[in-house]
C-alpha cells in the first residue's frame, strides 16, 4: 500500500456515521420485531392449529372400488356376481434376502415343476430396482372354500382321496382305484402306460398311479391328506389358504391377498351373452384416461363389455360403478386419523363414496335359456345359434350360441394352453353366432313374398309354373326340387319353399325394390337395437355388387330373392323379422336389458319396449304369408313339417343356405363340414295368437327342414309345456297377425 491509512483526515467523515448508525439500528430493530411478531402469530396465536396440522405426517388417498353390479335373469336369478378370491402375493425384494421362501412354498403347496418354474421366473423378472418392492401376485385363486373348477362351495370331505406328490420332480398323482379303467371324475377311458402302472385321463389330465412311487424317477411319493371335496366334481383339495396362512412365519415376504372375482353360475349356458372380465391392458388405459388403473378389471365381451358403464352417461346401465376415494391422514407414528377431526386445517380434502354398480335384470329367462340350450345340444352339429324373442315386446327370452366358452375360465386363471385351444377351435367358440351374419337362404323368401304382394305383382291366385329350374340370362337356376313343383301359387310356394316361384318374383321386383323393402320396410341390414355389439348383416344393392370383385350381374337378383347372393342376416334379425310378421307389422327394438336396480333393489330405470318401424302392409297380404308359414309346418307335405307339435300350431319357414367354405390344411371331417349348407328355421307360435318368435340356425347344419325345424319344434314344445306361454283356448278368435288400422304404409 503506497499511502498510509489517513487516520486524521477521515475523522471528519466518521462523524456522520453516528446518524447512519442510528438508521441501521432502527432498520434492524424494525425488521427483527417483524420476525418476532410473526413468530408470535404462528406459535402463540395459531399455535394450536399448526401443532395439530404438524401431527399429520402425510395424506393418503385410497381408492374405494365399487361393487360391480350383478346380472340377473328376468326372474332375478343370478347370472353373474362377485365372489372373493385368494391370491398369493410376494414382495420380490424379500425373496432375495430369504431364498428359502419359494422352495418352502413349493413343498407346502405341492407345486408341480411347471408351476414352480413359472413362479420363479416371474419373481426373477420382477427383481428390477423399480419393481422389487412392489407386491407381485404369483398364484391366483388359492383353494379355500370353493372349487377352483366350478366355484361350488367345498365340503369337508367324508373320506377325501389323498394327493400324491413327488418332492423330487414335483409331479402330482392320484391313487388308482382297484383296476379302474375310467377317470374317477369325468368317466373317460384311461390311457395306460408303463405296464399299467400309470393311467392318465386324456381330458382332465389326472394321472393315476397304482403304487405310491413316482413313475418318473422312482422316488417314494409324499401322501398329502386332503380335507375338502367338491360336491359337484368330486375332486379333493387341500385348503391352500389355511396352509399358507399357518406357515406365514416361514414364508417371509409372502401374503394372501383377497380380491374380487366374477362368478358365472350358469357358465357355458350364457357365455356369449354375458361375456367375461379380465385385466385392463395398456390400450384400455389409453382409451379411457383416468378411469382405470393397472390390475383393474374390465368387461370384455357381451353384456359385461356393453354395460361396463360410462360415468359421463349416468342414465345408462353401469355395471362397474364409479370408484370413490377415501382420504385420511397418517400421523408421525403411522396411525390413521379421520379427516373430519382436522376439518379446520384441511378444508379441501374430502372423501368421496363409491357409486356402486347397477344390478342389471335381463329379459332372458333362465328356464327358456335352458330349454333352448338342451334342444340345441341334442343336435350333433357343433356350431349354431338359437334365439327366442317375445313378439310383442321385442325382449329376448333366450339367446344361445354354440360352441360355448367358459366365462369363469376366461375371467380367471386362463392358461396359455387353454387360450390356444380356444383360438384354434375351428368352430369359433368366442363368437356369438346369434349376432353374427350368415346367408339366410329361404327364410328370406317372406321378404320377397311380401314385397311382391305389396307391389301388386302377384296375388293369392297368381300361379307360376315350376319345371324344376329357371333359365335366366343364359344361366340355369335350379329349384331345390329338381322335378319341379308344377303350377304353384303363393301359399304353396312358401310351403314348399319353391325357388323357381321366388326367382320369378325376384325378376319382376328387380334389385332396387327388393333392397328397399328389405332395409326400409323390414329394417334388415340394420342394427336391431340390442345392447351388445352385433353384426348388422347385409342387404346388397346393385352398387354394392358393383364394388365387389364379381361385379353386378342380372342373375344376382334371383339369388337375392331366395336369400342367397350377397344377403347376410343374423339369427336375431330373422327373429325380429318373424316377430314383426307375428305381431301385425311392428318391427321392434330387440332388448336384453329389462331394468336396472340399485343395491337396495330399487328400480333405477326400466326399459320399455320400443317400436322401431312399422311394416305398414295391408292385413290381407300379411295374412297370405301367414297362411303359407302355417302350411309349411302344419301340412303333411310342408317343408317344415318336422317342427309340428300336437298341441301348438306353428307358423314357420325353413331355410337352407349354400355357404361352402374351403380351408387349407384342415382335417377331412372339418373340410366336409365346411362344404355343407347352413340350416335355418324361423317360426312364431302359437300361430293363432303368436307369443314368441324362434329362430334356430345351424352353421353348416345341412337341410333346414330336417335339422333346424325339429329343434325349433322342441323349443316351442317345451316353452308351452313348461308354462312360459299361454296356449290359446279353442274358442279364442284366430290370427292376431293383423296390422293396426291406423298404420300408414311405407311406400
Amino acid at each position: 500500500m503506497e499511502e498510509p491509512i489517513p487516520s486524521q483526515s477521515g475523522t471528519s467523515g466518521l462523524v456522520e456515521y453516528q446518524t447512519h448508525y442510528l438508521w441501521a439500528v432502527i432498520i434492524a430493530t424494525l425488521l427483527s420485531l417483524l420476525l418476532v411478531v410473526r413468530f408470535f402469530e404462528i406459535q402463540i396465536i395459531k399455535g394450536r392449529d399448526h401443532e395439530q396440522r404438524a401431527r399429520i405426517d402425510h395424506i393418503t388417498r385410497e381408492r374405494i372400488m365399487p361393487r360391480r353390479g350383478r346380472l340377473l335373469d328376468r326372474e332375478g336369478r343370478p347370472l353373474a356376481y362377485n365372489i372373493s378370491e385368494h391370491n398369493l402375493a410376494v414382495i420380490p425384494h424379500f425373496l432375495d434376502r430369504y431364498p428359502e421362501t419359494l422352495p418352502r412354498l413349493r413343498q407346502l403347496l405341492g407345486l408341480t415343476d411347471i408351476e414352480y418354474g413359472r413362479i420363479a421366473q416371474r419373481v426373477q423378472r420382477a427383481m428390477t430396482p423399480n419393481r422389487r418392492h412392489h407386491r407381485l401376485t404369483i398364484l391366483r385363486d388359492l383353494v379355500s372354500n370353493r372349487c377352483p373348477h366350478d366355484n361350488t362351495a367345498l365340503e369337508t370331505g367324508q373320506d377325501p382321496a389323498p394327493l400324491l406328490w413327488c418332492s423330487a420332480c414335483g409331479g402330482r398323482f392320484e391313487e388308482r382305484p382297484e383296476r379302474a379303467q375310467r377317470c374317477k371324475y369325468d368317466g373317460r377311458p384311461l390311457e395306460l402306460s408303463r405296464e399299467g402302472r400309470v393311467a392318465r385321463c386324456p381330458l382332465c389330465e389326472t394321472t393315476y398311479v397304482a403304487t405310491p412311487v413316482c413313475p418318473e424317477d422312482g422316488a417314494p411319493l409324499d401322501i398329502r391328506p386332503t380335507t375338502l371335496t367338491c360336491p359337484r366334481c368330486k375332486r379333493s383339495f387341500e385348503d391352500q389358504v389355511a396352509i399358507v396362512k399357518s406357515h406365514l412365519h416361514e414364508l417371509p415376504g409372502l401374503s394372501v391377498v383377497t380380491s374380487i372375482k366374477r362368478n358365472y353360475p350358469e357358465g357355458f349356458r350364457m357365455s356369449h351373452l354375458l361375456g367375461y372380465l379380465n385385466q385392463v391392458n395398456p390400450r384400455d388405459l389409453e382409451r379411457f384416461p383416468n378411469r382405470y388403473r393397472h390390475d383393474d378389471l374390465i368387461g370384455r365381451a357381451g353384456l359385461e363389455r356393453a354395460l361396463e358403464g360410462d360415468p359421463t352417461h349416468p342414465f345408462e346401465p353401469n355395471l362397474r360403478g364409479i370408484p370413490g376415494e377415501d382420504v385420511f391422514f397418517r400421523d408421525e407414528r403411522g396411525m390413521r386419523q379421520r379427516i373430519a377431526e382436522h376439518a379446520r386445517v384441511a378444508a379441501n380434502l374430502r372423501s368421496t363414496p363409491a357409486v356402486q354398480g347397477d344390478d342389471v335384470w335381463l329379459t332372458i329367462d333362465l328356464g327358456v335359456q335352458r330349454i333352448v340350450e338342451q334342444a340345441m345340444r341334442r343336435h350333433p352339429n357343433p356350431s349354431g345359434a338359437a334365439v327366442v324373442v317375445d313378439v310383442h315386446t321385442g325382449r329376448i327370452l333366450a339367446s344361445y350360441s354354440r360352441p360355448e366358452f367358459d366365462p369363469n375360465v376366461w375371467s380367471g386363471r386362463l392358461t396359455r394352453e387353454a387360450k390356444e385351444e380356444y383360438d384354434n377351435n375351428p368352430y369359433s367358440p368366442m363368437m356369438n353366432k346369434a349376432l353374427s351374419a350368415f346367408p339366410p337362404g329361404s327364410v328370406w323368401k317372406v321378404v320377397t313374398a311380401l314385397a311382391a304382394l305389396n307391389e301388386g305383382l302377384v296375388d293369392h291366385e297368381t300361379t307360376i309354373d315350376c319345371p324344376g329350374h329357371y333359365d335366366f340370362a343364359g344361366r340355369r337356376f335350379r329349384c331345390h326340387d329338381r322335378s319341379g313343383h308344377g303350377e304353384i301359387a303363393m301359399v304353396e310356394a312358401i310351403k314348399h319353399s319353391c325357388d323357381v316361384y321366388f326367382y320369378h318374383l325376384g325378376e319382376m321386383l328387380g334389385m332396387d325394390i327388393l333392397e328397399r323393402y328389405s332395409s326400409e320396410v323390414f329394417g334388415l341390414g340394420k342394427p336391431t337395437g340390442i345392447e351388445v355389439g352385433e353384426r348388422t348383416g347385409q342387404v346388397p344393392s346393385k352398387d354394392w355388387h358393383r364394388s365387389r370383385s364379381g361385379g353386378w350381374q342380372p342373375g344376382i337378383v334371383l339369388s337375392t330373392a331366395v336369400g342367397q347372393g350377397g344377403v347376410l342376416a343374423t339369427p336375431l334379425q330373422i327373429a325380429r323379422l318373424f316377430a314383426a310378421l307375428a305381431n301385425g307389422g311392428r318391427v321392434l327394438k330387440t332388448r336384453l336389458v329389462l331394468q336396472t336396480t340399485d343395491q337396495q333393489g330399487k328400480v333405477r330405470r326400466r326399459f320399455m319396449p320400443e317400436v322401431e318401424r312399422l311394416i305398414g302392409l295391408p292385413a290381407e297380404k300379411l295374412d297370405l304369408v301367414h297362411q303359407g308359414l302355417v302350411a309349411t309346418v302344419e301340412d303333411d307335405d310342408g317343408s317344415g313339417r318336422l317342427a309340428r307339435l300336437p298341441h301348438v300350431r306353428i307358423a314357420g319357414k325353413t331355410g337352407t343356405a349354400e355357404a361352402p367354405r374351403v380351408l387349407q390344411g384342415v382335417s377331412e371331417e372339418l373340410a366336409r363340414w365346411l362344404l355343407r349348407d347352413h340350416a335355418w328355421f324361423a317360426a312364431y307360435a302359437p300361430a293363432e295368437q303368436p307369443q314368441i318368435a324362434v329362430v334356430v340356425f345351424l352353421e353348416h347344419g345341412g337341410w333346414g327342414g330336417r335339422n333346424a325345424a325339429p329343434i325349433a319344434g322342441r323349443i316351442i314344445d317345451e316353452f308351452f309345456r313348461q308354462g312360459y306361454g299361454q296356449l290359446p283356448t279353442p274358442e279364442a278368435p284366430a290370427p292376431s297377425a293383423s296390422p293396426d288400422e291406423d298404420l300408414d304404409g311405407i311406400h
Partner: protein
Amino acid sequence: MLLKGTDYRLRNILALFGFIMLALVSLINLRNADLYSAKQFHYAQIVWYLIGGVMAVLTAKLDIAIFERLAWPIYILSIVLLVAVLLVGVEVNNSQRWLMVFGLRGQPSELTKLGLILVLARFFQRSQQAERYTLRTLWQPVLVIVVPASLIIIQPDLGTTLALVFVGISMILFAGVKMRSILALVAIIGVAIPFAWQTDLILPYQKDRVALWLNPDQFKWDENRKQRIDKSMQPEQALWAVGAGRLTGKGGGQGSKSRLRSLPEMQTDFVVAAYAEERGFIGCFGLIALFYLLVAWGAGVARDARDRFSALVAIGVSALIFWQMFMNVGMAVGVLPVVGITLPFMSYGGTALITTLVGVGLLFNIALHMQRR
C-alpha cells in the same frame, strides 16, 4: 446504543460470548436435526467451526491494512471462481453452485461476499469526498456489485444474489448518499424487478414461490388432478413445524421426526423450522434477539471504527449477517418468498460458516482498534 458509555472491552467480551452461544445453539440444533434424518452433519460442522474459529482469531490478530491490500485479489479470485463454477461446477438440485477442490466441495459465492465487502470498503476509503455520494460518483461500486451478482443469479442462486445486493446497498448507504440519489436508486430497483421478472432472469420456480408467498392458498389444491401441489409443501410444512413449537417448544430431539420427508432442507435453509419446533416462541425470541444484539454491536463497531475502511467493513459484515438472518427466518415463517439462503452460524455448510467466522474475525479486529472518543 445499548450499553452506551460502557467500556469497549466489556462490550467486545459480551459480543464474543454472544457468538460462542450462537455456535453452541447451532451445534445442538444441528445434532437434533441430524437425529430426525439419520444424518451426520453436525460432526462436520464441529470441524468447520474449529477451522473457522482459528481463521477468525488469525483475522482478528492481523493488521487490517493487509485486508485492504488483499481486497482486489480476493474479489478477482472470487470472480474467476464464479466463472469456473459456471463452466465446471457441480450441479446439485438443478443449481450449479459448487466447485470440487481436492475432493472438497466449496461455494465460491461465499468468498465473493467477503471480496465485495473489502472492495467496496476500499473504494470508499480511497475516494475521500467531502460531499455525499451521488449515483454518478457511485458507478464503480455499483459495477463491483453487479458483476458478481449477475454471475451468481445465473447459477441460479437468487438468495446469495439478493444478499450481495443488500449488503452492497447497505454499505453504500452507510457511506453516505444524497437523498436525491437514494430516491433514484429506489426508482431503479422499482424498474429492475419487473424487468428481471419479464426477462426470466427470475426463474419460473422462483416466480412460483413469490406467487405462493403472496397467495398461499392458490397452490394448495389442484382441481384438475385432484391432488395437492407439491410446491406448497415445503413452506407449509415449515410453518406447521414452527407453529407446533408454541410457547416453550417440544424440547430437544422431540420434534416430529417424520416430517423431514416433506422438509428436506432441515439442516440448511429450513434449519430454523427445526429449531422453532424444539424451542418454541421463547427460543425463537431469544435467537432473534441474539442476532439483533450482535448486529447492533457490529453497527456500533462500524460507528466507532478508526477509519472509513474499517467502518465499512464492519457495517458490511454486520449487514451480511443481518440480511441473511432476516431473509432465511422470514422465508421460514412465511413473511418472505422462499429463496435458498442459509442462516449464518446455524445452517450446515463449510464455506458459508468459514466466511461468516472470518467476517466475525474482521469485526473483532476492528473492534480491538476502535477510536477512543
